């Protein structure tokens, strides 16, 4: 057997199909060597090459006057005025967190922060979107503890506040949790940096941690299904050092600010190879690099390891010609390991040397142009049946007050305070709205009157039952959450977490979800500036009879959205305020119980149609609430999401330590009116005396509204006059139900 033939047979071990291997041979014009095959396998993996997902992205709107940097760089950047921009991006660390939660989550934070400061932006906020299985199971407790500890360990030490996110629980994530980390950074327009090699002759500088064997093959690992054997892949999980990252952060930002670098990129998935390949591709040039110069942590490392290690806290810097010495001096001040490993060449090859020999010589464009696959998507008949299930036979519980208490204590809805108290959310002294206090985090922007708001959102049940509407709803909810603090939404980043795209029912979800995101982003004027794709989020469970059962996660396109407040003093939180206030529902009452948390928690049903989303109405409601907040007519605002109107009201009451008395004067099922999850609805607290002005503003924006009642008392009292029903729950009971689950889980 020839060496080439055996490589072809082993293509799968490099993450390539035989067809892909043949395509590689055709494009290069010869058989690759093993190192080359491995490099191509990593570059063409879903994680680096987006081979299944990129064709679907063409539907995304990516431009707008607010977009300074769209997709294709380390992070997107939006303009917030005053010569400032916000770089932001979200990335997943799902598979590493499934096998080693502490380091998996920690390095998720580290990786996304490097993407931000590689843009020349100082990171100022982190949000985490976390999804686990059943809170009661030992495995979930283990993962939850580990992930929270990992984020806490890394984020706290590096000194970037963790200001928000979500934590939800559903059995589909039992073996395959999701850890999506979003980071934001602030930059001056003139400091916007790019991941490019610049021009011929430029030096290529390696800086940061030495290269070890950790994280070997991580990009390929992240692009395959998890199984009961995945524990053996633990060496594919990297180990993070926030102290090193802090030094890298300060050094990189100082270098960019002083104009010493022509290009910069972090070594993320597929390490040294992907960073230098992508930088070369953006510059349209080739590189010559000597692997013998790479600083190593262990002896006896071979080219394959040097190329594909995902050791953390490493960057590639390309100095501005003539400023090389200044850059090296600066890096020395921060006591960082720094080596010139190569230079930018006039050819179009990616050439690597090892002990004087050429060990890799491939065209840069072949490496960067992964094959693209468009597949056939088919909806799962099982899911369609669940969506179309007739819900009229679902009984309305006799005691709806108890239902409210139960929902407040559902782990997905319950207070996440015990988690965010583990995170430093105030370091950098910009956090104006702390986690849990409002629907979005708000950070002030020093030297201006402005604030930046950020949120991450997705309701996976919606996406599961209807990927198009569900994904559009995730964008709508993110924008609504920003509106609830008074911020104008600017743009999104998305983190698409799905199962194995080779399965037609998963591909269908991916297809529909990307279309849904695109439609909502167009309607709400929030272009897509970047994102991350995590496929193969499914677990292959070996059954006692030897068969394999596949458990795919609920499709989870997490939307990270950034907005701006022109005047950070004009904002709202969700807590009912002191003083005399009346409560309005902006939007309409809806007796729509489909796809709700209530159905799942109380009736054990994941079924029904996702409420219809009217994006024009959504926009009017959001614009009206933003106007109310800025005019001082709304002091508190909170949108209706999981648990519906009743839970929204109860959360506002618990946060403010104040009761309320309201009427829901509408027709339809009582449980649906209270706990249904129709979109485009926000409860606002309007100071007494402002009602007339508030109503005029709502009319002006064409937003429907209903007067609900008033703030005060020591209970949440909700009456439904048309049903002759009255709910009444004392605040301490709601408080207790709301705070207990996570407090106990993390004790």
């Amino acid at each position, binding site marked *: 057997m020839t060496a080439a033939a055996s490589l072809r047979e082993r293509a799968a071990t490099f993450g390539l199909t035989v067809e892909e291997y043949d395509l590689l041979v055709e494009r290069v014009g010869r058989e690759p060597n093993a190192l080359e095959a491995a490099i191509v396998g990593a570059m063409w993996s879903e994680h680096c090459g987006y081979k299944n997902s990129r064709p679907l992205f063409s539907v995304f709107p990516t431009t707008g006057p607010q977009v300074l940097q769209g997709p294709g760089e380390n992070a997107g950047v939006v303009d917030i005025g005053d010569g400032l921009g916000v770089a932001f991006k979200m990335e997943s660390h799902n598979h590493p967190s499934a096998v080693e939660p502490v380091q998996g989550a920690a390095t998720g934070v580290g990786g996304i922060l490097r993407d931000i400061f590689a843009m020349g932006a100082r990171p100022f906020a982190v949000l985490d979107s976390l999804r686990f299985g059943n809170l009661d199971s030992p495995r979930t407790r283990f993962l939850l503890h580990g992930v929270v500890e990992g984020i806490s360990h890394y984020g*706290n030490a590096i000194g970037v506040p963790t200001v928000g996110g979500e934590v939800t629980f559903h059995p589909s994530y039992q073996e395959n949790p999701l850890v999506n980390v979003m980071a934001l950074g602030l930059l001056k327009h003139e400091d916007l940096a790019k991941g490019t090699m610049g021009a011929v002759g430029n030096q290529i500088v390696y800086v940061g941690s030495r290269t070890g064997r950790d994280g070997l093959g991580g990009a390929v690992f992240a692009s395959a299904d998890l199984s009961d054997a995945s524990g053996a892949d633990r060496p594919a999980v990297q180990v993070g*050092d926030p*102290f090193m990252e*802090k030094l890298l952060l300060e050094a990189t930002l100082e270098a960019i600010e002083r104009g010493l670098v022509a290009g910069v990129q972090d070594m993320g998935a597929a390490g040294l190879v992907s960073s230098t390949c992508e930088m070369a591709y953006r510059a349209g040039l080739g590189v010559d690099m000597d692997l013998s110069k790479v600083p190593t942590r262990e002896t006896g490392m071979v080219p394959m390891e040097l190329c594909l290690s995902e050791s953390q806290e490493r960057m590639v810097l390309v100095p501005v010609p003539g400023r090389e010495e200044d850059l090296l001096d600066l890096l020395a001040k921060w006591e960082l390991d720094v080596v010139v490993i190569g230079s930018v060449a006039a050819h179009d090859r990616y050439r690597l040397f090892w002990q004087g020999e050429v060990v890799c010589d491939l065209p840069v464009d072949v490496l960067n142009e992964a094959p693209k696959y468009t597949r056939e998507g088919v909806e799962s008949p099982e899911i369609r049946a669940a969506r179309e299930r007739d819900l009229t036979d679902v009984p309305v519980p006799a005691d709806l007050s108890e239902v409210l208490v139960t929902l407040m204590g559902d782990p997905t809805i319950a207070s996440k305070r015990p988690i965010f108290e583990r995170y430093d*959310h*105030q370091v950098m*002294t910009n956090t104006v709205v702390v986690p849990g206090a409002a629907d979005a985090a708000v950070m*002030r922007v020093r030297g201006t009157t402005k604030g930046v708001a950020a949120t991450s959102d997705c309701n996976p049940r919606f996406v599961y039952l209807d990927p198009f509407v569900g994904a559009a709803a995730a964008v709508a909810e993110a924008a609504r959450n920003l509106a609830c603090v008074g911020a104008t939404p600017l743009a999104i980043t998305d983190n698409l977490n799905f199962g194995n795209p080779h399965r037609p029912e998963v591909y269908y979800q991916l297809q529909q979800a990307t279309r849904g995101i695109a439609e909502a982003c167009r309607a709400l004027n929030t272009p897509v500036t970047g994102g991350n794709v995590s496929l193969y989020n499914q677990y292959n469970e070996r059954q006692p009879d030897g068969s394999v059962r596949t458990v795919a996660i609920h499709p989870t396109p997490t939307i990270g959205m950034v907005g701006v407040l022109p005047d950070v003093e004009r904002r709202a939180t969700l807590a009912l305020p002191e003083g005399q206030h009346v409560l309005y529902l902006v939007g309409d009452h809806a007796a729509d119980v489909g796809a709700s948390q209530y159905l799942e928690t109380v009736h054990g049903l994941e079924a029904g149609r996702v409420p219809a989303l009217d994006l024009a109405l959504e926009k009017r409601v959001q614009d009206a609430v933003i106007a109310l907040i800025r005019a001082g007519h709304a002091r508190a605002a909170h949108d209706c999401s999981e648990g519906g109107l009743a839970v929204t009201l109860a959360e506002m009451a618990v946060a403010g330590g104040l009761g309320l008395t309201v009427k829901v004067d509408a027709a339809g099922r009582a449980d649906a009116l209270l706990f249904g999850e129709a979109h485009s609805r926000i409860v606002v607290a309007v100071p007494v005396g402002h009602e007339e002005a508030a109503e005029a503003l709502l009319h002006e924006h064409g937003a429907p509204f209903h007067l609900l009642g008033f703030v005060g008392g020591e209970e949440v009292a909700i009456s439904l006059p048309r049903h002759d029903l009255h709910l009444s729950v004392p605040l301490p009971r709601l408080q207790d139900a709301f705070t207990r689950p996570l407090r106990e889980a993390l004790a």
Partner: protein
Amino acid sequence: MSVAVVQFPGSNCDMDALHAVRTIGAEAHLVWHTETDLGRASAVILPGGFSYGDHLRSGAIAARSPIMNAVRAFAEAGGPVLGICNGFQILTESGLLPGALARNEHLHFVCRPVRLRVENASSVFTDVYAQGQELTLPVAHGEGSYYADDETLARLHGEGRVAFTYLDNPNGSLRDVAGVLSERGNVLGMMPHPERVVEAVLGGTDGRGVFESLVAHAERAVAL
């Protein structure tokens, strides 16, 4: 007159401390840990963070940084030195304050507002507060549980060297100690973060008093 804020590799509240001093209208400058001179410092702040990544023990390596010789000399000459969070850990590690900061009793990092009582309102760091005044300041640490032997604790209390105590102890500190003064009263270490609450937009101004007291004394010392 200018307040020197020392930057160690891994400090992360250095800019916050600098900003807090400037917010109350005083001057501040940064001093890198390899320096041997504090500049024209009228006061010194050792800020919070994870100096040297908390390797070995929190504050242990920073305590042996070149700049700490200058800080020690400055303190011996009676200059005011304030250590916040990791700065407090550095002060105990360098012997400028007694006791030690151990892992929080519940073993977790904790970030939340805590209520404090001003136990000594006559120090150079606290004299704009009233004796017994209650403050709300945030804490953010994993190793903030104050420990000293019984004799030391008794002496600290007896000599009015406990500057602040916790009203809702977040970390298991003995006798609820949140801040400790040196024998001469010119060195204060505290776990809570006053620099995080000097502006109403960030949710409170209870921390201003620490910086106002410090700056007023430093200015007076310069005038003398």
